């Protein structure tokens, strides 16, 4: 019995040295997460990324793999994150013509709203005594993940905490846009789409596509512009205020 458990230990050590196990776990959880999401009738409060991440967490907890080891193996996937961020420019270019249809609210609203999305959260957290590292992790909360990772690294925040904040923000934004649009009696799919993409990044954009292709297109545009604007303004604001 101890002989077998020794061998099992040896096997785990062998596998955790190579990135193959981390990559297989990530891929497996990705497919399982998507399947579960479809099976649960696509719940807005439980996006596939959250399901998949919980599956990976459970798996590495059960197999007693250290998170640092998993992270190191999965680095191989993160190499693609740079080119994938560049790739976001393609849908942005494809949706750019929508700016002409609604340029006034976009030009006047987007910079203010994208700035406030960060300011509200950072201010509330600062008033409640959060540390500078937490503030830097919360600031890009409305920005799509690949861009937000770059911002957090520049600001010196924790990527993991930022990702958690991103998920909660996306889910909350979807909920609040539904709720508040009804109260303010806003039905224009272009405005709903922009609000979803601006505040709720990819999770909000996925919800916008459920409302229709117009809302989806404007959400993609709102998400892309918010990402670029925030990436340019946040590092500047942080260096000026000296947080």
């Amino acid at each position, binding site marked *: 019995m101890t002989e077998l458990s020794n061998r099992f230990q040896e096997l785990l050590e062998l596998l955790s040295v190579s990135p193959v196990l981390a990559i297989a776990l990530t891929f497996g*959880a*990705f497919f399982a997460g998507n399947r579960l999401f479809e099976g649960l009738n696509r719940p807005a409060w439980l996006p*596939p*990324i*959250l399901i*998949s*991440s919980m599956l*990976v*967490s459970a798996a*590495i907890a059960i197999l007693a793999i250290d*998170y640092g080891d998993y*992270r190191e193996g999965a680095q191989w996937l*993160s190499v693609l*994150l*740079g*080119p*994938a*961020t*560049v790739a*976001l420019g*393609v*849908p942005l*270019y494809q949706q*750019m013509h929508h700016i002409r249809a*609604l340029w*006034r*609210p976009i030009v006047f609203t987007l910079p*203010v*709203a994208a700035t*406030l*999305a960060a300011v*509200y*959260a950072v201010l509330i*957290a600062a008033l409640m005594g959060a540390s500078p590292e*937490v503030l830097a992790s*919360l600031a890009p*909360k409305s920005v799509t993940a*690949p*861009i937000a*990772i*770059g911002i957090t690294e*520049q600001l010196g925040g*924790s990527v*993991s905490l*930022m990702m958690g904040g991103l998920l*909660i*923000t996306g889910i*909350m934004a979807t909920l*609040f846009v539904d709720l*508040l649009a009804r109260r*303010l009696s806003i039905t224009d799919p*272009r*405005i709903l789409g922009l*609000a979803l993409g601006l*505040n709720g990044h990819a999770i909000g954009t996925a919800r916008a596509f459920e409302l229709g292709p117009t809302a989806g297109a404007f959400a993609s545009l709102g998400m892309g512009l918010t*990402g*670029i604007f925030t*990436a340019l303004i946040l590092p*500047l604001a942080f*260096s000026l205020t000296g947080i």
Partner: protein
Amino acid sequence: MSMLRGFLVLTVFFIAGEVLRVLLALPVSGGVIGMILLTLLLMVKGSISDSLAGASQALISVLVLLIMPGVVGVFFVADEFAGQWLAVGIALVLGTLLSVLTTLWLMRRFSGQEVDGHD
């Protein structure tokens, strides 16, 4: 094969972004700089090749895979930020409520003007 050509374009733009970031000491990530360069170039060109469109779509469709390792970490940092979770939670929920409200209010205001105006 043609998708690989598009992937090469994306990688070259990413490297160009990294080069600009380091040489000009920009506080923005190389990916974002590359993305802005690509968007501007496409707008000037006015068209996009099938290989670039295909490679972009393929990468974007697996974005979840690429960011998942970072998300998994959130389940393992509980101790690191002990005592700050209440601030984090309230900042996220209340902050998002306020920013959605501001966005919708501003959008309605400015798009309302557009209807009254020339459109």
